[in-house]
């Protein structure tokens, strides 16, 4: 007997996500619990201080819940969340920057890591994000969209509402600064030795 062959794979929404979309309170809570660490990590990549991370994370979680019924299952749920979080975080940072030009004070809490979190990878990422903290915020955002969220240059340009060439230029500048910062660190290490 002949079977109908689907022409394309229909989008599939995982049951836990579907339940959350349908308003199941427990499913929504579980979903937020699941995505929270990743959301915080992405927000921290985008902001310059730990102090701001949780405020923006909370706003991002609200945005995810509010937009949940627009998720169609086209692509990974995580990627969909990443986009919402990045968009909201960048918008919040811009708004705060416009409200006040104050510099955020970077408070080192590297050692706040509890032993269970203080794996080498954790320490490594903390070092990395400290280097990002030295970048101008616009360059940082382009870098994170491109290298963390794997956006192409045109996608990042569309996301940020800036010309392609601006994105390319910010990427170049960001990479140069990171290289310089790395060289400085190496120099410092050699001086110390």
């Amino acid at each position: 007997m002949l079977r109908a062959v689907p022409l394309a794979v229909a989008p599939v929404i995982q049951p836990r996500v579907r339940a959350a979309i349908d308003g199941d309170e427990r499913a929504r809570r579980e979903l937020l619990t699941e995505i929270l660490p990743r959301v915080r990590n992405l927000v921290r990549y985008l902001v310059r201080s730990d102090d701001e991370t949780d405020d923006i994370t909370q706003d991002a979680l609200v945005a995810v819940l509010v937009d949940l019924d627009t998720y169609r299952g086209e692509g990974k749920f995580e990627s969909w969340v990443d986009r919402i979080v990045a968009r909201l975080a960048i918008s919040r940072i811009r708004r705060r920057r416009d409200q006040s030009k104050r510099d955020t004070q970077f408070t080192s809490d590297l050692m706040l890591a509890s032993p269970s979190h203080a794996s080498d990878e954790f320490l490594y990422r903390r070092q990395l994000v400290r280097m990002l903290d030295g970048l101008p915020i616009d360059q940082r955002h382009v870098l994170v969209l491109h290298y963390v969220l794997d956006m192409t240059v045109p996608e990042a340009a569309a996301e940020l509402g800036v010309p392609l060439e601006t994105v390319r230029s910010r990427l170049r500048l960001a990479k140069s600064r990171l290289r310089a910062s790395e060289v400085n660190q190496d120099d410092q290490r050699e001086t110390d030795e």
Partner: protein
Amino acid sequence: MTSTPGLRGSLKLDAHHGPASRLSRTKAAELIEKAMERADSPTVPLPRPKRRFVPDAALLVPALAAVPLALIAGAAAYFVSSHNGWLPHANAAQTPAPAAAVYAATPLAPPALSEKAAELEAKGEWLAAVQAYEETARRAPNGEADYTGKIAAGLLRLRRLGDARGALPLLSAAISMRPSDPRSEEARWGRIEALRTLDDRAAEKAALQDFVTLYATGPLAALARERLEPSSAP
């Protein structure tokens, strides 16, 4: 560490390993509950950015305005802690949080005080949180709340108020209370950081050697060994 050609491999995003700092389960649950509440009540305004801790000392001395905030906070915290014992002066910071005198007048038992302290910490009201943790410790001498309160207050003094001198006796006392408790690892590491900040190199070295012996396979052991190298002096 981060040669730019390898940026894509270095800047990883997942649910583990940072770069966000740690988050307690309680705080994570609070974050989620608040988000759900706000999503269900869209009229609730978004939170304003946190106000930062600014000690009165900085306001009284205009020349200090040019000094980085961390130095001001550290200097102010040191000033108050060295003049008033454990407790900073009630008016040492422009925070709306209650001062120690208020806690002394409330009937809150230590567990409730611990919760209050954790709430204040979550709000970023570091000085008020320190006061609450210290009061928690004072009200339950030699108990669990004393031990955890001292560690929490010590680490906050050290890392948030820049008050290494005030942190040191708190952390030392906690370690003495329960030297083999796993949580003393963090207290010992905080003590090492405090000694380093105070440039007490001999004591820091001794503390590092103890640390390496006690937690040879712990996550901070490698860093401790590195610091014991002669070239790692601050």
